[in-house]
Each structure stands twice: as structure tokens, then as C-alpha cells.
């Protein structure tokens, strides 16, 4: 057996094993170095797995050589490869870029614990993505969530504590709902293996416990994914978390929950079961539309920069859900592309925010008046990523919006209405991004403050790498499109 066959397992095992080791490291800088190296290795594994699934469609791995459906099976598809790239990429870039920012926000003697939590979160997220076992997903989800609570609670503002408490309560309720749903399915099918479930659910698909399970699972995961109106935990947590943590979590945490949601909704509760239509067209699509409009509207009036971006994230979750709720290959492709592109844009934006955070303790918009003159590189990266968020052509954001609009247009009259909503919300995105840009470039610095200097060079490098990736994948989106397209096709056309 060569090493490539073990990649699915290593993807999770490496960060998980390194986490306790990091706790023991007391030498300054060492935890960061080890965590970064681990994250980099996870990224390399993700790239290797992507390579495999592009060639041979999917890779499976049986833990401890127990055959599925008895043992736990790891299953990497194009869909999971896309998510793995997002998660490990975001983590690596955030760690590489953010060392100074973390040093500034986290006390030195707590850093080993911080980095250990980071690695656990990474292991949790990747675990959710690669595993093919419904209960295993729950365990990894809770590992990731608990680690996220720790990471967020490391924020220096005391307001982070009530925020993270709220997140903990809502996150646990979501996970428990999910657990109830999985239990009901297990009761009806006698299996926890997703592929096996898919095969067996036909016989019992119309029975009430399955419908109830679908309700519980959808609701629980919607909570984790911050689908409107179950989003209340997200804005404050993102606002007061350490900047780098926000950059990491904003890029991947809600998307991983959405990943599980889509996997359940399309693989397990298949589209040919009776309640599927109802779930998407009647339930999720209106929620997606509301999320897009209301969250964008709130972002327009938000006073805190991170809060503004957090509300924008909620709107983006709406876009992803909207694409999925069209239940068509183009729609789903658009949704998955938007996962990738939004991770690029939001990651870059929050890294730029972290650069600003090096010089400002309060990131209220008024404080940032005129900052572009003092921090030109930071703000230029912010503008670039902001354009991608708006969806200006030439940036990654444009590709997914284009796909989303053309997918919606295939739906006839309803599609035209959806296009109108997408257009309106894009204009709202222009407004809220532009508020920041205008203030930073054309506002006068507040009288009382001292002039600030540009962010540290190394952080700028990382931020710019993220920003330029928005351009690169806006011009050459072949890789994410092939992953997203393949994933969408397999989610919808897996049935004979």
C-alpha cells in the first residue's frame, strides 16, 4: 500500500494528532510554526486528493479495513474535494498571514492552546467533509464547533462572551436536532453509512419518521449554516472574534454545514421522494431570498466593519441556498461555485480587516475615515476583494453570479423574479462595500487620532495573495468549475 491510498485518512488524522502536541510546546513561535506546517500539509493532502478525484471520480477508504457499511468509510468526491480545498486553503492562508495579528490579540502563554484549538477545528471541518458516516459527521461537527467556540472566545472584547455563549446554545441545539434526525433514519434503515442509507431509503422513503428526520436534519444543519432566520449567532460572533479566526471561519464554517445539508438533501432524501420539492421550493427558496435581501439590507446600515461583512456572509449563504433550491444541475453548479468564490472573497476581505486590526482597536466605520491614505496597500486589497464580493466581471464573484443568473433564467417566470432579486441585492452589495471604500479613500481622518502606519509587510503579502486569487479564479475558473460541475452532476444524477 502506498501513501496516496491513505490520503483520505491522513487528511483528518494529521491535524488531529498534531493538536495535543502543540499544547505542549512552550517555545515562543513554535506553536505557530507547527500549526502552520500542519495546516500546509493538510492543504497538500487536499490538493493530492483533488488530483485523484479529478482523474478517477472518487476515492474511498475503509477505516481499520472494516468493510462498509459495517466500518466507517471515508469517501472523497469532487464535492468534498472542493470543500477540502476551501477549508485547508483558508486555514493555511490565515495562519501564514496572521501570525502578527494573533500575537497582537492572544496572550503569549495562551497561544499553544489557541493553535491546538485551531488544529482541532481544522480536523473537525475536514472530518465532516471526508467521512461517509452520518454519526461520524455529528462527532466531527461537534469537534469543529467546540474548537470554534474556543477560537472565537479568544477575542479581546468582552462582548465576544455573550456572543459565543449564544453560538454555543444555538450550535448545540442544531447538532442535537441533527442527531435526532440521524437516529430516526437509523431506526428506519438500520444503517449509518450514507451510501448505504441512500440505497435503503427507497423502501421506507414515504414513511413519516423519514419525513420527520428530514425536517430535523434540515433544521439542525440550517442552524449551523446560519440560514436566515436561524442566523442570530453569527454576526456578533464574527464581529468580536479575533480577526484571523473570523477570516478562517467566515471562509469555511457555514459552508461545511451547507455541504452536509446538500449531501443529505440530494443523496439521502432523494429528489424523487415526495417531500423534496416541498422542502426546496416552498421552504428553502423563500428563506434564501429573504436572507439575501434582509441581510444585505442590514449590512447597508451596519456600523462595524466586521459586522457589515458578517451580514454580507449571511446574504451569501442565501445565494448558495438559492442556487441549490433550483434543484437543477446549473443551479447546483452555481451554488457550489459560489461556495468557493465567496470563500475567496470573504477570506481576502477579512484578512484585510486583520491588517486594519493591527492599527485600530475598534473597527467601527467612523474610525476608518481616511485610512486609505495611511494604509494604501491594505485598502487596495480590500477594494479588489470587495469587487469580487459585488460580482464585478473579471473577478471570481462574477463567475458564480453569472452561473446563478443563467441557472435561474432556465426556470421561466420565477427565474426572472429571482434574477431581479439577485440584481437588487448586488446593488445593495455595491452600496455597503462602497460605504467602506468611500469613507476610507475620501473621508478625512478623525481629528483626535494619530496617523497610523501601513500593516506589517508579511500580512500584506498574504492578504494580496488572497485578493489576487479572486482575480485569477475570475479569469481562469476551470478548476473550481470542473469540481463544482462534477459534484452537481453527481448529486443530481446519481440515480439510475
Amino acid at each position, binding site marked *: 500500500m502506498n501513501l496516496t491510498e491513505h490520503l483520505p485518512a491522513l487528511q483528518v488524522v494529521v491535524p488531529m494528532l498534531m493538536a495535543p502536541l502543540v499544547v505542549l510546546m512552550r517555545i515562543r513561535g513554535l506553536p505557530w510554526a507547527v500549526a502552520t506546517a500542519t495546516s500546509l500539509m493538510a492543504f497538500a493532502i487536499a490538493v493530492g486528493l483533488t488530483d485523484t478525484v479529478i482523474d478517477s471520480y472518487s476515492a474511498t477508504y475503509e477505516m481499520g479495513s472494516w468493510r462498509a457499511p459495517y466500518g466507517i468509510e471515508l469517501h472523497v468526491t469532487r464535492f468534498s474535494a472542493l470543500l477540502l480545498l476551501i477549508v485547508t486553503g483558508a486555514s493555511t492562508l490565515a495562519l501564514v498571514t496572521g501570525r502578527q495579528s494573533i500575537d497582537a490579540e492572544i496572550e503569549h502563554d495562551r497561544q499553544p492552546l489557541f493553535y491546538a484549538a485551531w488544529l482541532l477545528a481544522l480536523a473537525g471541518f475536514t472530518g465532516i467533509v471526508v467521512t461517509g458516516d452520518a454519526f461520524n459527521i455529528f462527532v466531527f461537527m461537534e469537534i469543529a464547533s467546540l474548537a470554534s467556540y474556543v477560537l472565537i472566545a479568544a477575542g479581546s472584547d468582552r462582548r465576544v462572551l455573550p456572543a459565543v455563549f449564544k453560538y454555543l446554545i444555538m450550535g448545540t441545539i442544531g447538532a442535537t436536532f441533527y442527531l435526532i434526525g440521524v437516529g430516526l433514519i437509523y431506526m428506519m434503515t438500520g444503517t449509518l453509512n450514507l451510501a448505504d442509507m441512500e440505497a435503503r431509503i427507497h423502501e421506507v422513503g414515504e414513511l413519516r419518521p423519514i419525513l420527520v428526520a428530514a425536517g430535523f436534519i434540515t433544521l439542525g444543519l440550517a442552524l449551523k449554516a446560519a440560514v436566515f432566520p436561524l442566523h442570530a449567532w453569527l454576526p456578533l460572533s464574527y464581529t468580536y472574534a479575533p480577526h484571523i479566526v473570523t477570516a478562517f471561519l467566515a471562509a469555511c464554517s457555514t459552508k461545511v454545514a451547507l455541504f452536509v445539508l446538500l449531501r443529505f438533501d440530494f443523496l439521502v432524501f432523494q429528489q424523487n421522494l415526495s417531500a423534496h420539492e416541498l422542502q426546496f421550493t416552498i421552504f428553502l427558496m423563500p428563506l434564501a431570498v429573504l436572507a439575501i435581501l434582509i441581510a444585505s439590507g442590514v449590512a447597508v446600515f451596519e456600523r462595524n466593519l466586521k459586522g457589515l461583512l458578517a451580514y454580507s456572509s449571511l446574504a451569501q449563504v442565501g445565494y448558495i441556498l438559492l442556487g441549490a433550491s433550483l434543484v437543477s444541475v446549473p443551479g447546483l453548479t452555481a451554488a457550489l461555485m459560489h461556495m468557493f468564490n465567496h470563500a475567496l472573497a470573504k477570506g481576502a476581505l477579512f484578512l484585510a480587516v486583520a491588517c486594519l486590526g493591527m492599527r485600530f482597536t475598534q473597527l467601527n466605520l467612523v474610525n476608518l475615515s481616511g485610512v486609505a491614505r495611511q494604509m494604501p496597500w491594505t485598502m487596495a486589497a480590500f477594494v479588489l476583494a470587495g*469587487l469580487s464580493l459585488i460580482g464585478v466581471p*473579471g473577478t471570481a464573484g462574477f463567475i458564480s453570479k453569472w452561473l446563478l*443568473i*443563467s441557472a435561474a433564467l432556465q426556470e421561466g417566470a420565477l427565474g426572472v423574479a429571482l434574477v431581479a432579486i439577485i440584481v*437588487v441585492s448586488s*446593488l445593495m452589495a*455595491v452600496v455597503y462595500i462602497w460605504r467602506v471604500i468611500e469613507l476610507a479613500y*475620501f473621508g478625512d481622518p478623525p481629528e483626535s487620532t494619530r496617523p497610523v502606519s501601513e500593516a506589517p509587510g508579511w500580512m500584506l503579502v498574504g492578504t494580496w495573495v488572497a485578493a489576487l486569487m479572486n482575480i485569477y479564479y475570475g*479569469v*481562469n475558473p476551470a478548476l473550481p468549475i470542473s469540481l463544482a460541475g462534477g459534484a452537481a452532476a453527481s448529486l443530481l444524477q446519481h440515480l439510475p
Partner: protein
Amino acid sequence: MTSELQVLIPILLPLGGAVGIAFVGRRYPNLRETVTLVTATSLMVVVWALLPDLLAGERPSVRVAELIPGLAIEFQIEPLGMLFAALASLLWIVNSIYSIGYMRSNNERHQTRFYVLFAVALSAAMGIAFAGNLLTLFIFYEVLTLSTYPLVAHKGDGKTVESARTYLGILLATSIGLFLPAIVWTYHVAGTLDFLPGGILADNLTGPAVGLLLALYVFGIGKAAVMPVHRWLPAAMVAPTPVSALLHAVAVVKAGVFTITKVVVYIFGVDFLVTESSADWLLFVAAFTVIAASVVALRQTNLKRLLAYSTIAQLSYVVMAVAILKPLSEMGAAIHIVAHAFGKITLFFAAGSIYTAAKKTEIHQLRGIGRRMPWTMAAFTIGALSMIGVPPTAGFVSKWYILAGSFQSDNHVAIITIIVSTALNALYFLPIIFYAWFSREDVAPANDHGEAPLAIVIALTVTAALTVLLFLFNQPVLDLASQLGRITK
């Protein structure tokens, strides 16, 4: 034979210039201005070098990247784009000379930013001119909007930023809210966005949908300032004069009418629109804008605002000429883009010259100023005559073709509009010229000023000369325009 690189150089060159300007920066202002001028001159050389091959019938194109199958970033050189690019690259040189004089004598802030963004705007204009499909055009259209916003907001005080926000708000909102959906719709029904002679929509769309799609385009392309999306143009008057010249003559509004022309000719196809009665409204809207803007211009007291409304009227001339849908009028539209550019840049240069030398901005202050500033006012006179369409100026040539096109199709609305608006133009320009030359100053100015700085005078003399020369030697422009006319036949 034109190589692929030759197509890309006009777009990359100003970008390189922008980097160079930023690099040299504030420390070496002389070097910075030299870089600007060198870039501008070499841009003109490379653009004009493309002309012979084009006239010989070549249509060189480059595909840079394919985003999604059928959706690519692609450039192609064709007559209309060539005309726009040649015009913009020529006027950039003159405008740069003028900018140097204007910015220095008025001690403007952020001069490096000004020159950098100017170069970026030119790069965007070249991208619009040579775009091979609608998507590419749209990208550069947005780049042009974004890069000119800081130029409009140059002064940076509250009122300026407010106006600049109107500028940006209208242009971005219309382009994202109307133009982009129109593009998506086109792609949805036609499966392509390429500019093809004869259009791509002919077999894919019928009935009222055609009129609706055309409306999305016409109002989505806010830079063409067809009423009611014209408000950004007067708002942008807060910009320094060289920027106004950029907006009104070199790039921005020209990009607008150029895009509309291009959409009508290469996306809809003239023959197709002739058969679709649901698209007839365009002519009336354009005619209304011509008359309404001229009437508003009559009531203006500020010189630059008057010029702004005059521009709105003149732009709709182009749109109207396109909407007549006859080969001669399409030619007239192309020529009018050039003619108006020469005339209007002269007028703006003159207005800026007066502001620099005398600090005067209002029309009633201009009595007797012709004696102090004879060169400036002479240029102003030529520009104004061209706006009215009096020979021997460029405006006459284009009006001639537009009129000829209207007679070809017995289009009474167009004929009457042209006659009425000519009268209105005369009504608001002639008094200014008359009082400037033939009446005395009410009060002597505080400083006994003469002409504006030399750079400014040179620039406006050159553009005034171009306005006259285009009347006398218009063969190259006609050649290009007639190639366009041939497509529309």
C-alpha cells in the same frame, strides 16, 4: 498582417504607463509628466499603426481567456472601435499637455493619483474600443467607471464627494441593474455574446421583447446619458476641467454612445431592428433628449453646466442617428462621435482656460473677455460653431450625414429635431460669443490677467484646429465610417 500582440499592446501600454507614473510619483513631477506624454504618444503611434491593415479588410482578434465555454475575454479590431481608439489616443496627448498646464497653475492636490488614474481610464477606453464581445466590453466599461470616480471626486470636499457619488451611483446602478441583465438575457437566448456583423439576435427574439431588451441596453448604458439617466453628467461638473474633457470628449460619454452603436449594429443588427416595430421608441426618446437637454442648457448660468447639457443633447444626436437605422445615418453617428469630441474638448479647454486665468465660471462674467484672451475665445468660437453645425467645422459634416440618413428614410421626427435643436444650439452659444467679443467688461478684474499658461493655449489651439481640419480633410474618418455603413447595408 497584424499580430496578436499588436491588438493587446494598446490596452497594456497605458497600464504600464500608469505603473511608471506611480513609480516616479510625486518626487519627480517633471519626469512624471514626461512619462505621461511619452505613454500617450506611443499609444497613439501603436493605435494608428493598426489602421492600414484594418482598412485593407483585416479583422485581427485575440482570445485571452475562456471563462466558461462560450464566454470569453476576447478582443477584435473593427472599424467603429478603431475610430474610437484612434480618437481617444489622439485626444489623450492634447489633454495631457493641457492637464500639465491646468494642474500646475491651479496647484491641485494628488497630481500623481490624477495622472495614474487617467492612464488607467485610457486603458479601459482601449479595452472598450477593441472588445470582441459584450462581456469584455462590460468589464472595461466598469473599469472606466471605477477609475474615473476618484478623478471626479478629485477635490475631496463634501460637496464634491456628494456629486461624485451621484456620478458613480447612477453609472454603476444602471450598468449592474440593467446592462448586465441585458447581457445575461442576450446570452441566454443567443448562446453567444460575440459582436457579429448583422447581429446575433435576429432569429432568437421577436415581438415586444426586442423593445424591452433594447431599453435595458439603452438605459443600462448610462454613459450615453439618454434621459432620464443623464443626471450624472451635470453632477460630474465638479471635476477639474481636464477630467471634464476626459468625460465629455476623450473617453467616458464616447464609450457610452460607442457601446450603444455597437450593440445596435453588432448585437441586434440594423436589418433586424428595421423589421421590429417594438424598437421604434428609441428614436423618440433620443429626439426628446436632444430637445429637452437643449432647452435646459438655455437656462444655465454656469458655463460648465451649460456645456454638460449641450453634451447630453449631442450624445442623443448619436443615439438618434443610430436609431434612424440607415447606412448613411450610421456613418453620421460614427462621424459625430469624432466631431463632437473635437468640438467639445475645445469648449472645455476654453472654459478651463478662463477659470485658470480669470477664475470665472459664470456666463454673465464673460463680457468682453475676448479681448483679454483672444486665443481662448477664438477656440471657443470654433467649438461652439461646430456644436451648432456651421461650416467650416466638423459638426457640419456629421450633421450632414445624419440629415441625409433621415431623408433617406423620410424620418420627419429626426429632421424636425435636428432643425429645432440647431436653432436652440445657436440660441445658447451665439450670445456668449457675441458678448465675449463685442461688449465691454462691466468691471475691470482685480488682477489684470491675459492669456492662460502656454500649455493650455497650445492644447486648445490644437483641438480647435482639429475641429476645422476635420471639415477639410475627413477622408480617413469617412473611410472607417463607410466600412461601418457597409456592414449595416
